[in-house]
């Protein structure tokens, strides 16, 4: 019986293929997992001289003076936090409104479809194009607002002058537009996941649409909206080009939203190309802090999101 035997041989010959393929896939998976570690390792290694020299003072001092080899990123950390929090402040009401708009039936499906398209387009526009647009549209608007604000509200530290076009406020306004799609998409999913039964039950009790939205739908979707906001915050903190083009890239601490400011990502974008010696190490250290902050924020966002999905999975 030679034929079947050949079959077995050829089959095992095939098996050499699949086993190899499995090893290949496993290898790729392993590389992916190690990649994050590799990224962090490379950055820590390159940052090491700076970490040794400055330690935690790097985070708490506000000097970035390459010619004197003094490096501290406090202003950039504060700028990162301030610009992204301010962006959230602008984007949150808009994002949640659009999410409600998209998940409720105020208007015809075709209008909702258009709205969805608008949000998707906003997500597709490259950061550098937002920067270019911001230079020509948002800077003059913010400058005009700033001049008015300094004249009439200059007493408040938040609006103390002089008002610059390249400022924290300018960067935050553009950031808000950029993170809108993130907030909208995740919030919409959270709203859409509110069980129909809950919604209909509320209407049956005689509630108007907005009574239903405020008393039942939003509270039920709240954890998801919170997650959306946190993930939007993470996105804003890491956003680089538009911010670097608009914020003025200053390394000073200031209370005024009309002053130039700086972010960690912007610092890296501006200085890496021509940095030397300890400055490179310090930029790597700054990159490490940026990774730590964004990973932390994203982990919290993901955790809230996962918790939400589990919580709403029960009622259906």
């Amino acid at each position, binding site marked *: 019986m030679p034929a079947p035997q050949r079959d077995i041989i050829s089959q095992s010959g095939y098996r050499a293929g699949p086993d190899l393929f499995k090893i290949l896939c496993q290898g790729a998976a392993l590389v992916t997992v190690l990649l994050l570690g590799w990224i962090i390792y490379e950055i820590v290694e390159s940052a090491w001289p700076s970490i040794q020299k400055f330690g935690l003072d790097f985070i708490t001092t506000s000097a970035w003076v390459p010619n004197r080899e003094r490096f501290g990123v406090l202003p950039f950390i504060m700028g990162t936090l301030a610009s992204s929090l301010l962006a959230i402040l602008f984007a949150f009401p808009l994002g949640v409104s*659009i999410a409600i708009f998209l998940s409720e039936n105020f208007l015809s499906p075709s209008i909702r479809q258009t709205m969805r398209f608008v949000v998707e387009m906003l997500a597709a526009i490259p950061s550098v194009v937002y920067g270019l647009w911001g230079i020509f549209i948002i800077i003059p608007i913010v400058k005009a607002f700033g001049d008015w604000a300094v004249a009439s509200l200059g007493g408040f530290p938040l609006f103390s002058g002089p008002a610059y076009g390249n400022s924290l406020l300018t960067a935050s306004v553009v950031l808000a537009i950029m993170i809108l799609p993130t907030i909208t998409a995740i919030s919409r999913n959270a709203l859409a996941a509110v069980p129909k039964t809950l919604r209909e039950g509320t209407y049956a009790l005689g509630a108007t649409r907005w009574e239903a939205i405020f008393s039942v739908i939003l509270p039920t979707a709240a954890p998801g909206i919170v997650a959306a906001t946190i993930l939007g915050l993470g996105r804003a903190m*890491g956003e680089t080009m538009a911010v670097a*083009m608009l914020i003025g890239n200053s390394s000073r601490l200031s209370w005024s939203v009309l002053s130039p400011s700086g972010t960690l990502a912007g610092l890296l974008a501006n200085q890496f190309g021509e940095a030397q010696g300890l400055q490179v190490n310090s930029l790597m250290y700054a990159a490490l802090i940026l990774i730590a902050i964004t990973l932390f924020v994203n982990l919290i966002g993901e955790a809230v999101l996962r918790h939400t999905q589990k919580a709403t999975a029960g009622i259906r």
Partner: protein
Amino acid sequence: MDSIASYSLGFFNNDPSENTKVIARSLKNRILSGICIALSLLTMVPLISIIFLLLKKGLPLLGLNIFTELPPAAGMAGGGFGNAIIGTLAMVGIGLAISGPAGILSAIYINEYSPASRLAQAVRMVAKLLTGIPSIICGVFAFAVVVMATGTFSAYAGGLALAVLMLPTIILTSEQALMGVQSAYREAAYGLGATRFQAIARVVLPDAFPAIMTGVMLAVARAAGETAPLIFTALFSQFWAKSLNEPTASLSVLIYNFSTVPFPHQIAMAWTASLVLVAFVTLANITAQTIFSRRH
């Protein structure tokens, strides 16, 4: 259908004060709807403004020479950004050549071979975390690995940075694509005596292919528009690239460089480059969605 419930309540209620309350509730309802719609429509303003400016400022210079000539020096007229288009395509190509196989193979492992294994869970988590890492960090990584080692800015460094950027998108979308393949197909393949490899290669992958391509195109669209990973890995060049191991121009870095100059011609060129870039990214996105919707 806005407030049928409240109106009907009103009909059956004879107390006039109750009636005004209902009208007040209905009015409040309408006002809130109006605010919500107004805020939503407000979002259209920036998009319309961006598209309008792209067309108004970008179209005048759009011509064939844009694709065949080199960027103009400061204060000079004419020119184009052919080298930047080639540079962007080359670096996205390098990125795809690395992240495509790595991402799809990883996805096959975590969905087909051992979905519940620790390695698979780790891949999913790392992919999630990588999507949250700022794109400039990809550039910092490529700077440390390639630029500091070779001593020169290069298309390789830029390509590696883009690969890191694209990888998580490709893994996560490919996994979704593979999950979408009905398990009956796999079982039928095994039933016919196929090995795991044969089932994957002949049945699962062909079925999931369009959805995987969707993910790949989304990753390409995102990478093409990115600037931050390129500014200190590929840097920029005024000239046609002679090799991949030298500073390389890209559309996005050209826009960045030309956006903060006082020369009107270069600024106009930045707008034209933006128009080309947005058109390319939109085209890639639309391709991705067409592939996707054709399947579903």
